[in-house]
């Protein structure tokens, strides 16, 4: 199930050198340029020495293009792709610790089963439920679990990949394409 792109939210992936400080460079870039990211995931890629980052950026074409171009300027960044327009699968993983009593445990397990979520820890007072899916699925499960008392939530954030045999981002955005939505900066300090 592909995650519907929420209003103004775009998925960008970046292949980066796995070096100390690369996350600080990327995070610092987003902060000082005023880019609004709602989600950032980093992990090893298929190539040794390279990591793949997935960002969810809030903004229009102008913002996404600037994000991509500014990321490219970082020496450690190998490739940037705006994959929002591609046919992608996007998933996140969430761990949810929910309060459970002998009386309601069965009901919670039933809810988890409907969502095909796994119970990965059981203790006298609580359960930990693991679920994988799009943000909306995780949100929906959370809504249903809230009445029981959600103690802790840990969400990984979105990771995404193109469907089919082609590599993610192979229809990659040209960093030098014509910009149609430059900002109209009325206030200049």
């Amino acid at each position, binding site marked *: 199930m592909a995650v519907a792109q929420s209003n103004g939210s775009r998925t960008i992936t970046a292949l*980066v050198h796995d070096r100390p400080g690369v996350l600080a*460079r990327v995070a610092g*870039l987003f902060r000082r340029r005023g880019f609004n990211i709602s989600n950032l995931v980093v992990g090893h890629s298929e190539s040794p020495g390279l990591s793949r980052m997935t960002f969810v950026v809030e903004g229009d074409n102008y913002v996404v293009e600037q994000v991509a171009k500014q990321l490219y300027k970082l020496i450690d960044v190998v490739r940037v792709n705006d994959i929002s327009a591609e046919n992608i699968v996007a998933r996140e993983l969430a761990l949810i610790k929910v309060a459970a009593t002998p009386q309601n445990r069965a009901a919670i397990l039933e809810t988890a089963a409907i969502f095909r979520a796994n119970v990965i820890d059981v203790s006298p007072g609580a359960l930990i439920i693991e679920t994988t899916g799009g943000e909306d699925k995780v949100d929906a499960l959370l809504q249903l679990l809230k009445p029981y008392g959600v103690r802790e939530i840990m969400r990984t954030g979105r990771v995404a990949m193109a469907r089919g045999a082609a590599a993610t981002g192979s229809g990659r955005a040209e960093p*030098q*394409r014509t*910009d149609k939505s430059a900002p109209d900066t009325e206030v200049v300090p």
Partner: protein
Amino acid sequence: MRLTGGQMVCAALLREGVDIAFGLPGGAILPLYQTLPEYPGLRHVLVRHEQNAGHAADGYARATGKVGVCIATSGPGATNLVTPLATAMMDSVPIVAITGQVPRAAIGRDAFQETDTTGITLPITKHNYLVMSAAELPATLKEAFHVARTGRPGPVLIDLPRDVQTERAEFDYPDDIRMRSYRPTLEGHAQMIKRAARLIRDAERPLILAGHGVLISGAMAELRELAEKAQIPVITTLLGISAVNEDHVLSLGMPGMHGWAHNNWAIDRADLLVAVGMRFDDRVTGRISSFAPNAKVVHIDIDPAEVGKNIRVTVPIVGDAKRVLHALAREVEPAVRTEWLQEIDRLRDEHPSYRIRESDGLLPQYVVRELSDATEGNAIVVTGVGQHQMWAAQHYRFTEPGAWLTSGGLGTMGFEVGAAMGAAMGRPDKTVWSIAGDGGFQMTMAELATIVENRVPVKFAILNNNHLGLVRQLQDLFNDGVRVASGYSGNPDFVKLADAYGVWATRVTERGQVRQAIDDAMAHDGPALIDFMVEPEENVYPHVPAGESVAEMLEGPAPEGERAWR
């Protein structure tokens, strides 16, 4: 060959063609310094403050086109490099800065003189490195110089823990380097160049906006060829000044906040802007929504992130200015644009910004014009930031490319001292004039000692108005004349001060003394300083208020008792 980390730095600098490094030692960089005597081909210039080592490396780089090098110790040494690194970053100047760091085992423990130098300089360097073993150092040094000087140039910092400087490893300096994640685009897209040529053919009122990128890529001849063939007048941004000979009939001078009024009006009427190696800074555009409302835009820049960043672009061309302009000049058709050139001449007649007011007093503009005449427009001119900078930009007529060194993007007061020193050491064949303000000069004047020690023949022209002049001007024009913290009542006697350092100096208070003083300063074999006591309340015109459109431009002083006229 096995070398220590410190030896590797020296050996690499020599391999990169560096003959001079500016710096100031301290504990954490001492092992590197102690190896300097083994490398007599590498001249070290001991400064009085690390900031000026950075500015000197910057001035050296801008004046020679080579990479400038500065060295500082950890902690305060490194933090003192923040301003010059940010200056170089904004103006795309290639610098390699080498800083000492506390020993590896002490990193992260708040050791004496420890700062997170790579963290602090992350947003103000093109790239930086914390080198944790001597074995990595040769490749890192090679990469640092490569990154600094290629693509859109910029400062690169290498942070070296003290024990890495003493650690031994094999020194195998690579001749070449290929980086998977850094490959600047040099050739412009052929299709885009064709489209740009068509836009130029169809345009009736085209303008070229030439920026620093033209000078950096050495595209002056190509720029001139394009301008002449297609008959396009050339406006040069603050950092693009000297990219065309200012005596050329198609050279229009500077646009923007303090640019010539006719240029701002020409941009307002233009139907095509061909922007080359410039980035539509807010000082150029004013209010974006009112900027060049009738113009399509061809934007040529080596940095793709600049294209489309501030204004909408019709034809983007990412590439090296020299190569793109060469291709574009071949592609365009010869044109005659008599009407447009006449219209610009009319604008110039209607808005005579070059005119300075009648006065018996010592006008700063007059001093700059005399300097321009006395040096025949071919001195290297270095400035600080403020009124004197704008007057120098407006009234010095540059006839040679790359002779204008100023802190444009960051606007660093005090740049004029260290940068002039570095420029003069890099170009001993040229006369170097530092046009300074009394405010900025006092920020960095300690380097007079370095200048004397090294017999650097820099000539200083202080346009002394006992004010932070541009601040005073803003307060007078836009803050009802309420002057807060913009006047100096206790400036030192700059002539005596220079004398104390052993710098030849004189004071000028009247128009009639200007030329003689300039000639005397140039005749003096060594550093010299002239304290020009200029009209303290002279304003820079034109003045487009920040964030306003060309229609709000103030073009000259107000008649008695009135607001400045439009």
